């Protein structure tokens, strides 16, 4: 055990932890007028962390007595985490400052959530995995309730905290059963412990608890009831982060637990997983159809997107062909990345129209945006097209890869359900576009936020959505290498 050498492999985590401490300290010493400096400081720090990720790419080592693994899959998840972090940090301050929410705490808590996602992605032991999960979700509860003087934020934060704690306990209970059955918490040892021949009541209980707890974390139906309230209550740009950040982490958890530790049992968990996938896609979309509040509509549609991503995992589980299984994981990774960029940006545009603190993201705020702010309306238009899945945006390719993986794995019926759902989703996404370009502005139109950070982040996100849509090749080849480290 050479822990000093192992330090190099966790360089990104160390730098991120240092960045958290730097932010806390700097926040103490700068005056209120200079708090905005925290944002460029955080973004700069995250770029340094990203550079450290380049250093550990292609390490593929198990470190710290098998507690942690730095494989390409984890590095990909971490890179996506950095992207999410940078965009979120740029979008949020303008919204928070108007509502007098302290920026120092926001940056620190957000960075902690990112660190939790790092740990989650790299866990090769269920103990580390659980700690990563907690380090990711604890800050998420805080972020939801960050707007202390707003009772919707209080309500959302409390609901998320209570239900999330239960889900964490359920995951932990499932882990303890798995430990009881295999005598180990190490993920690769569990995979090699020959569970597949021994389907028993205890294994069923362990699987049940793990599925319930982890699908709660990705907000799959029927464990999604916390989502709309938590997402609506949270400050809007933070909702964007919550709808993708913890979800990315939870998918990393699903990959580690179900596609790695419990891969030998995939025939057993596939059935229940398919039911959840179909329910999640369909119910998320049906409820999103009826929403007239864009923020709430995006919250429900994020449930539907969870369902689309789950299709990729189902494709992984439904095949014995390694190439097809890898394709399933690859489609999950690409979808998570693309979805992260477009969804954070979409929530951020809703937030930009809430400069007036009495606005709650209603559809009417978008009326006539095409004439009032052509650039922002065009950006929102691109994001809506991408969320619908229309070429040449990243949303189209993400859906296409998931569909291809599902068809190749022999789940053509699931692919058909996905396409029907995507068609249904087009209605509520394009309705926003209709409001922006074909309705007259309200008598008292919502003031628009034009802070430089937000504008830059929006431009970057839209560029990302279009570039990843036009030239997905480079990212796909990285994803291929990442997914290969699972097999």
């Amino acid at each position, binding site marked *: 055990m050479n822990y000093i050498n192992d330090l190099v492999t966790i360089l990104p985590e160390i730098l991120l932890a240092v960045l958290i401490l730097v932010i806390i300290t700097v926040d103490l010493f700068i005056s209120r007028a200079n708090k905005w400096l925290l944002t460029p400081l955080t973004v700069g720090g995250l770029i340094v962390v990203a550079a450290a990720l380049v250093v550990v790419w292609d390490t593929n080592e198990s470190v710290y007595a098998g507690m942690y693994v730095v494989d390409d899959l984890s590095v990909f998840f971490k890179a996506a985490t950095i992207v999410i972090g940078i965009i979120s940090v740029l979008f949020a301050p303008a919204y928070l400052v108007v509502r007098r929410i302290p920026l120092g705490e926001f940056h620190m808590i957000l960075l902690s959530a990112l660190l939790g996602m790092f740990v989650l992605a790299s866990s090769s032991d269920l103990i580390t995995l659980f700690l990563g999960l*907690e380090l990711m979700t604890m800050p998420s509860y*805080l972020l939801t309730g960050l707007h*202390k003087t707003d009772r919707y934020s209080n309500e959302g934060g409390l609901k998320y905290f209570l239900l999330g704690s239960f889900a964490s306990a359920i995951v932990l209970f499932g882990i303890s059963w798995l430990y009881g059955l295999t005598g180990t918490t190490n993920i690769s040892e569990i995979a090699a412990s020959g569970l597949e021949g021994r389907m028993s009541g205890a294994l069923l209980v362990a699987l049940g608890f793990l599925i319930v707890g982890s699908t709660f974390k990705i907000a799959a139906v029927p464990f999604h009831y916390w989502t709309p309230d938590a997402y609506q209550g949270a400050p809007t740009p933070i909702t964007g982060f919550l709808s993708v950040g913890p979800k990315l982490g939870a998918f990393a958890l699903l990959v580690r637990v179900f596609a790695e530790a419990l891969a030998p049992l995939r025939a057993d968990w596939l059935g229940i997983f398919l039911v959840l996938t179909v329910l999640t896609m369909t119910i998320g979309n049906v409820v999103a159809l009826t929403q007239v509040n864009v923020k709430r509509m995006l919250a429900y549609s994020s449930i539907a997107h969870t369902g689309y991503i789950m299709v990729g995992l189902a494709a992984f589980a439904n095949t014995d062909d390694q190439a097809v299984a890898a394709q399933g994981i690859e489609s999950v990774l690409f979808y998570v990345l693309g979805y992260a960029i477009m969804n954070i940006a979409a929530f951020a545009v809703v937030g930009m129209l809430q400069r007036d603190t009495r606005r709650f993201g209603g559809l009417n705020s978008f009326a006539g945006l095409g004439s009032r702010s052509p650039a922002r309306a065009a950006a929102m238009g691109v994001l809506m097209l991408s969320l619908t899945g229309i070429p040449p945006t990243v949303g189209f390719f993400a859906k296409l890869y998931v569909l291809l993986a599902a068809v190749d794995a022999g789940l053509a019926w699931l692919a058909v359900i996905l396409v029907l759902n995507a068609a249904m989703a087009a209605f509520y996404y394009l309705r926003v576009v209709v409001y922006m370009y074909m309705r007259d502005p309200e008598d008292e139109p919502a003031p628009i936020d034009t802070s430089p950070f937000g504008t830059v982040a929006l431009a970057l996100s839209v560029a990302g959505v279009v570039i990843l849509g036009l030239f997905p090749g480079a990212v796909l080849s990285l994803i291929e290498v990442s997914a290969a480290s699972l097999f």
Partner: protein
Amino acid sequence: MPALESVAVPERDRLSAQPSQPELSTLDISSVLFFLLAIGVVGAGIAVVTLRNIIHSAVAMMICFGSLAGMYALLGAPIVAAAQVLIYLGAISVLILFAIMLTQAGDANLPAPFHRQGPIAVVVALAIIGLVGWAVVQTDWGLLPEAVSAGVEDIANAVFTTFALPFEIISLLILVAIIGAIYLARRPEEDERAN
């Protein structure tokens, strides 16, 4: 089965200095203790969620924590038991009692907010208990003949070698929890001043 017995006897002897895991077949002192502590944990746990007076709930929780500490001692993990007493029974329970006393104005009786869901909750809880109990009984757990040693030295070794990384992660988790708790508990006016 003579072979089995010849193995079992010396183990008994070796373990007699240290309390062993309870065996359901023999009604020795450790199984009696186990059942008493189990009643303490489960009974007090039910009391925590059903009692209407929040101070009564807090006291029931102390009983639950204390019984759990006894359970750890019975399983041959004295250091875990000591930590349970120090941290949960000592620090956390007292903090909770103080927090209640400082924040409660007047009558501490609260209406039960989930009252109407009570019957359904009981049915669901019983179903899950039944399922879990059935799974426990019908599984061969491959138990070790004796409890693994969990003395101070073993735990110290594990924490600072195998579990060094998780140990460090916990410190960050606690840091963010502390900062978050302070932020949420602080009055908005104090936020203004702090900025």
